[in-house]
């Protein structure tokens, strides 16, 4: 209980001080629909002003351009929901692409290369996880360290040059299309569905939110903090490996200088989507919206041909605007709640979203530990 008093932000004793459901639904709805609505508005605007935008080839391009960011951001969502950060995913994916390409070139085997990528990703995730949990190093510093190490190793392995000459079988995979879309897009969709399931339908998914929301409460309810934190980093490591494989598919070469800012972009995509950087609140679906918003915006800015410097200004402004919706949501709730109740009620954790799809109904069989789901 002392811990709860220390961090009233996270405490939400059920039955007490819970605002009327109707109010929370309104705030939550605004919160949940904000980014998708902005995205739709952007798509509508770009389609109206540029003929090339909604062409089949450009839609494919946007999806392809979003794929690597998406895979990394889906993995990062779990890390952030658990209240941690992983900065090593960008240079990590560059290093793993170099490792995978080198193995493929040396052995001539695509499977060996893919295996090497996954193994390297697992190792990276384990190192991050062990440093954070066993050595108690804050994840920002721990993964900053591995980020720098990965960049250094990638350059040492290649002298900064790309590793090309992958087996011809691998090139065929890259050009393969299913139902009109490149295999990479389907792969990204599969990663999304898998992680969505993991977040919504497994005990682990709720444990991640619980640990990120209130670590002490989670510990007292019998969740092993170390195990959950280690697992989110392993998950991020594997996502990094998948992103590296996606990079190999996309450009058919190991790229030591790629993805320098990818980890930060992934964090931006996660937060823009509406996942709390403090942990305990968020979802993979939100991240999907965040990624699509960034990818469409980037593509639209490139097509519009405006000056590079202003592009950066627009991009930064959109990041801030989209992320500030959390504040707006709270304002919206505050206006409708009596002042005496307002304080603690404002910060009650919002449940993970059900997402746009019909597949998931309510919080299902798994009782969430800290995120008490209000019934709509």
């Amino acid at each position, binding site marked *: 209980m002392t811990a709860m008093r220390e961090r009233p932000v996270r405490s939400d004793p059920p039955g007490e001080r819970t605002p009327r459901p109707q109010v929370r639904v309104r705030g939550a709805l605004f919160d949940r629909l904000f980014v998708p609505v902005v995205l739709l508005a952007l798509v509508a605007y770009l389609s109206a002003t540029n003929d090339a935008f909604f062409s089949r080839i450009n839609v494919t391009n946007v999806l392809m351009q979003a794929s690597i960011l998406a895979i990394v951001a889906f993995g990062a969502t779990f890390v952030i929901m658990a209240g941690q950060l992983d900065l090593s995913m960008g240079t990590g994916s560059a290093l793993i692409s170099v490792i995978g390409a080198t193995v493929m070139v040396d052995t001539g085997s695509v499977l060996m290369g893919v295996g090497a990528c996954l193994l390297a990703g697992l190792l990276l995730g384990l190192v991050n996880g062990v440093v954070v949990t066993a050595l108690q190093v804050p994840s920002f510093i721990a993964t900053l360290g591995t980020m720098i190490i990965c960049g250094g190793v990638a350059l040492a392995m290649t*002298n900064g040059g790309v590793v090309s000459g992958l087996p011809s079988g691998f090139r065929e995979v890259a050009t393969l299309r299913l139902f009109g879309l490149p295999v990479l897009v389907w792969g990204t969709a599969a990663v999304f569905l898998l992680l969505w399931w993991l977040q919504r339908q497994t005990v682990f998914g709720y444990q991640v939110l619980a640990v990120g929301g209130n670590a002490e409460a989670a510990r007292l309810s019998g969740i092993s903090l170390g195990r959950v934190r280690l697992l989110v980093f392993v998950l991020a490591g594997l996502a990094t490996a998948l992103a590296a494989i996606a990079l190999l598919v996309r450009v*058919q070469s190991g790229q030591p200088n*790629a993805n320098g800012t990818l980890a930060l972009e992934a964090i931006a995509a996660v937060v823009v989507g509406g996942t709390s950087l403090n942990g305990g609140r968020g979802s993979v679906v939100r991240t999907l919206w965040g990624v699509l918003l960034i990818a469409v915006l980037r593509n639209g800015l490139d097509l519009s041909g405006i000056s590079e410097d202003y592009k950066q200004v627009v991009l930064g402004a959109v990041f801030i605007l989209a992320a500030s919706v959390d504040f707006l949501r709270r304002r919206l709730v505050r206006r409708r709640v009596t002042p005496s109740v307002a304080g603690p009620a404002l910060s009650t954790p919002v449940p993970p979203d059900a997402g746009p799809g019909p597949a998931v109904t309510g919080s299902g069989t798994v009782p969430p530990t800290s995120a008490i789901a209000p019934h709509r």
Partner: protein
Amino acid sequence: MRTSIPSTLTRPDVRRRTAAALAATGLVLSVAACSGGDEEASASGGGGEDQLTVEMNLYSRSLPYFQDFVAGAQERAEAEGVTLNVTYGETDPQLQYDQVQNALTQSPDGVIVVPVDPAALIPVFQQASDGGVPVLTAINDIEEDGWPSVVGHVGKEYTDVGREKAQYLVDTLGGQGTVAMIHGIRGLLFSELQAQGAMEVFAENPGITVIDGPYTGEFSSDAGLAAAENVLTANPDVDALYFDNDDIALGGVLAAQQRGIAMEDIVIIGTDGGEPARQAVAAGELDMTITLCGFLNGKQAMDTLVSFVRDGDEPAERTVEVTSQMVTRDSYEDVEALIASGDC
């Protein structure tokens, strides 16, 4: 301190090249002698003399070009009995400032710097010059204010590289056509000066329409691919894609291929001439790349500094020009031979 050297030598192609270059030491010496008449005495008389220490600070590790530069300088350093210590500025002027300042506390006999920024290092060069430590800049020149503090400069102007590339496009397109420029990193001298030189040439050719495209933000094929996809979507009938680096240009090749554009119907050019790019030229995918001959540049820089330190020979001109080699399908084999012999 010399950590980068062993890793450089473990690369098969570099090892091969270094071995070939060592075998051709006689040739190396004659090349060194050619680069300036005054150097002949010192070059042939080098080797067994007093042990020198040279501190070298590079722009970054991130491009093979810089690693070639180090390998070239290292080869000449070994031949001249020079201990070479290398540090890397990682594209950060502030870090580079500190590194050069730290290097000066070792009281080296000379310093070779590839500056990240044309102005930021001038105070520390001034400090070196006051302390009697000669400084040579290479690859990127500094602003005129700093010239009195340095021995000279070894390198090729990026604006000239841009001009040559633009002229190649003008000639290839017969003076008529649309060129889309896809840049590397905003604010990076390598990207900006090349573009500046290229724009000068395009401006003189009214038949050429220039689409000033996006910056990729990093030198990776994926970034180049995404940028080229968007440029080709917005401007489906471009005749040529200009990239300021090969890694992004290789992404441009993929973008054109995925769009179903035949490689004969589009001209794609880059800069750097690394092995994957040269292979792409040989395969007819990339039309042209320019190698700035990092290995030769490194050798020339080391020779220029050593002859100044040993014999007080100042370079005849403030800037020692470095040759670059245009790699096209026609010149591809000649350039490969030059690189194999260590002359580029």
